C-alpha cells in the first residue's frame, strides 16, 4: 500500500494488471446490516465460502431505522424466526395520524392476530436485530470481520470487480463476487459507476430519532397495550410543510420518536431537524404519550427514498448491490418499510452470486439472475407498483395543504354549531378546499393518482 486511502465519495478503485490467480473467498459481502447478513447467510447456505465485512465494532452499530421490521421474508431463511428474533414488541396497533398545529385525526387499526404466530410487524433495536441475523450468517459458515472499512474496490484493468481493499494493514481481500450492502452512501456502488445520476440528494431523506425510556406499565397504559403488544403510529403534517413525516413506535421499555424529512427541503427551509422533533414532542396529541421519557439515545441516518424510478444498476462484473446501497427503502405513504426489502434483496443476491459461481460466470450477464429474481419477488414488484407514490406523498399539496384539509373536514363534521343546522359533507369540503386554497381539479387529480398508485 502506498497512500492511505479512505472510504468516501471520492474513493478510488485499486487496479490490478492481472486478475488474482486464486481468491480468498467465493463471496465477499460488505456491510453486516440486514441485506449483508442475509446475503452472507444465503451464499454460505449455498456452499460458498463467505466473508462479511462490517465497519462498526459490531453489526448494527452504525445503523438506524424507525423501529419496525416485518419479518415474513425471513420464513425462507430462518423458519420459526419469531421464536428467536430479538423483538421488543409485536405491532398489534397500526395508526396513521394526520395533524396540524392544534388538530389531529388518527385512523387506528388493531388486530390481535398480529400478536400471535406467525406475526406481522415488530419493533426491535437494530443493534440486537442486526447482530442476531449476522449470527445466523456466521453459524452458516460466513466469516464476520468487524471494525473493518472497505475503502475501495479491487478491479482488473477491464473493470471486473475482484475484491475490496480495507483499512487494515495488508487489507486486500479477493473474491469471485463482491456484494455491496454498504448502506445509503454506498461508495462502492458509486465507485463502480452503478449510480448514474449525481443528483442523489434529491431522493434522500434525513431521519432523526430519540429513544425515550419509560416504564413498561406506563407504556402499556398510555398506548393501551398488554404483554408484548405494540403500537406503530405514522404521522403526516408534523414537519412545518417540509416534505416528510414523523413516527412514534413502542419498544418494551422505551418509545422511538422520530421525524423524517427530505434533505433539500430541510436545507431550503433553514430549520434544524431537532426543532421539528421538539415541535412533534410538544404537540397535544403526542406530548401526553411521551411525557417524562428519559432520552437514552439520539440518532440520525439518511434514507434513500427514490423508489423504483431511481434504482441504480444492480449488477456489474463481479459486483452486486443490495439494501439501502441500492435505494431499496419503500416510503410509500401508509407503507414505510426497508429492512424487509434489504433482507429480501440480500437473500436473492447471495443466491444469485452462488449460482453464478457455480455456473462459472460472474460477469454482469452471469449475475443477471439477481435482477430477475427481484422483479419476480415483492422487492421490486412493490417498488414498481408504487413507483408514483413517493412523489405524491412528498408533494407540496400532500405536505402543506391536505393535513389541514382533512383535519378541518373532521372538525366541521364533529363540531356542533347550534342553533345552526349541521352542514352537509359537500359544503364542508367546499369550504375547506377554499380555505386551504386548493384547486378542486388538483384535488381530484391527486385522488385519482392516489387510487391508481396504490391500486
Amino acid at each position: 500500500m502506498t497512500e492511505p486511502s479512505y472510504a468516501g465519495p471520492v474513493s478510488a478503485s485499486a487496479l490490478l494488471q492481472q486478475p488474482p490467480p486464486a481468491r480468498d473467498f467465493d463471496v465477499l459481502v460488505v456491510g453486516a446490516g440486514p441485506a449483508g447478513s442475509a446475503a452472507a447467510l444465503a451464499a454460505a447456505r449455498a456452499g460458498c465460502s463467505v466473508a462479511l465485512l462490517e465497519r462498526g465494532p459490531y453489526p448494527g452499530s452504525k445503523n438506524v431505522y424507525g423501529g419496525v421490521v416485518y419479518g415474513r421474508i425471513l420464513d425462507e431463511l430462518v423458519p420459526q424466526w419469531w421464536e428467536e428474533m430479538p423483538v421488543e414488541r409485536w405491532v398489534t396497533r397500526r395508526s396513521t395520524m394526520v395533524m396540524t398545529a392544534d388538530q389531529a385525526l388518527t385512523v387506528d387499526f388493531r388486530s390481535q392476530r398480529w400478536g400471535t404466530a406467525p406475526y406481522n410487524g415488530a419493533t426491535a433495536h437494530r443493534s440486537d436485530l442486526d447482530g442476531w441475523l449476522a449470527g445466523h450468517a456466521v453459524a452458516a459458515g460466513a466469516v464476520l470481520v468487524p471494525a473493518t472499512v472497505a475503502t475501495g474496490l479491487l478491479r482488473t484493468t477491464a473493470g471486473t470487480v475482484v475484491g475490496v481493499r480495507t483499512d487494515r494493514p495488508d487489507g486486500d481481500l479477493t473474491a469471485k463476487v463482491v456484494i455491496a450492502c454498504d448502506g445509503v452512501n454506498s461508495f462502492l456502488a458509486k465507485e463502480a459507476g452503478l449510480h448514474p445520476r449525481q443528483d442523489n440528494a434529491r431522493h434522500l431523506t434525513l431521519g432523526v430519532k430519540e429513544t425515550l425510556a419509560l416504564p413498561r406499565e406506563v407504556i402499556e397504559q398510555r398506548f393501551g397495550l398488554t404483554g408484548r403488544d405494540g403500537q406503530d403510529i405514522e404521522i403526516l403534517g408534523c414537519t412545518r410543510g417540509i416534505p416528510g413525516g414523523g413516527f412514534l413506535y413502542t419498544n418494551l421499555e422505551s418509545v422511538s420518536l422520530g421525524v423524517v424529512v427530505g434533505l433539500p427541503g430541510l436545507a431550503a427551509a433553514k430549520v434544524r431537524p431537532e426543532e421539528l422533533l421538539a415541535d412533534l414532542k410538544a404537540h397535544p396529541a403526542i406530548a401526553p404519550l411521551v411525557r417524562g421519557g428519559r432520552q437514552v439515545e439520539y440518532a440520525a441516518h439518511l434514507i434513500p427514498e427514490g423508489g423504483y424510478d431511481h434504482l441504480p444498476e444492480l449488477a456489474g462484473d463481479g459486483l452486486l448491490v443490495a439494501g439501502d446501497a441500492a435505494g431499496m427503502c419503500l416510503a410509500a405513504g401508509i407503507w414505510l418499510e426497508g429492512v424487509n426489502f434489504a433482507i429480501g434483496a440480500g437473500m436473492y443476491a447471495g443466491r444469485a452470486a452462488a449460482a453464478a459461481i457455480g455456473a462459472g460466470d460472474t460477469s454482469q450477464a452471469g449475475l443477471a439472475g439477481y435482477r430477475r429474481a427481484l422483479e419476480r419477488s415483492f422487492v421490486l414488484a412493490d417498488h414498481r407498483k408504487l413507483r408514483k407514490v413517493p412523489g405524491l406523498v412528498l408533494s407540496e399539496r400532500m405536505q402543506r395543504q391536505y393535513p389541514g384539509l382533512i383535519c378541518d373536514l373532521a372538525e366541521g363534521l364533529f363540531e356542533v354549531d347550534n342553533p345552526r343546522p349541521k352542514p352537509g359533507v359537500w359544503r364542508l369540503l367546499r369550504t375547506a378546499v377554499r380555505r386551504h386554497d386548493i384547486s378542486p381539479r388538483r384535488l381530484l387529480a391527486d385522488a385519482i393518482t392516489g387510487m391508481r398508485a396504490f391500486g
Partner: protein
Amino acid sequence: MAEQPLVVAALSPADPLGGADQAALEHTLRLAEALGGRSLAVTVGPAGAEEVLRQALACGVQRVLRIDGPAAADSDTTARALVAGLGLVPDLLLCGDRSSGRGTGATPAFLAARLGAAQALGLTELLLREGELTAVRRIDGRRREQLTVPLPAVCSVERGSARLRRAALPALLAARTAEIQVATVALPEPRQPVRLGPARPYRPRPLVLPAPVGTDPLARIRALTETDRPRTAARVITPAGPEAAVDELLGYLREHGYLAHLTREDDQC
C-alpha cells in the same frame, strides 16, 4: 536476562478486551520488539476466554496460552494460576491496571510477589530508554513521577496509556482458527469469598433520655413531650472568644444530657 527476553501480557478473559488490557497488549508488543524478545499473551479462564487470545494473536503476539480455570477468581488465585501455568519467571509481565467491571487491581501485586519480581503499577507511560525500562505514574496533586524498573518486573498500565494497533487482515483471519495452547494447573480450593449482605440506609443511634417522672401516664407523656414546659426566649450570648464559645456550647450540651458518655478529658482533644 535470557538470550531472547520474554514479554508476557496477562489479559483478563472478558471479551472484548478492556481499555487497560488493550494498552497492556500494545505495550507488550512494543517492548518485545524493543527488547528483541518474544511475546506471549496469557489468560486464565474457561474455553470462552480464548476469544481475547485470538484478538492478541491477530494484533501480533507470537504465542498465546490459556490457563484453564474459573473466569472470575480472586486476585490471589488468578496470580497463582498464572505463575503455575507460565512455569517460569518472564522478564517482563504486563497487565491492565484493573480488569473492567469490579476489578481491584490487586492481581499484578500478587503476581510480583509470587514471581519475586519488581513491580510498578498503574503506569501511564512505559518504554525502553537506553536499555532501561522507564515508566511514569500519577501521584497526588496531579504530579507524575518517573520510575526506572529493573527486570524481571510486573507492570500494570492505565487504559489510554497506549492505543492498541490494528490487526492486519491476514493475521485477523488466521487467528480465527488458530490452535490455542491450553495449560491445566492444580489450583487450591477457592477460598470462601467475603459475602455481601444487602445494604441498609444509615440510621443514627437512638438518643437515650431519662425516664419521665410522674405518677400518672398523662403526666409522664407531658414530661416526655415537654408540652408543660414553659417556652423561653432564645438566650443570646456574646462569648469573648472561640474558646469561651466552645465552653459555652459544651456546657449547654452537657446540661441537656447529650455528652453524658464523654468525660472531661475527652473535651480536651
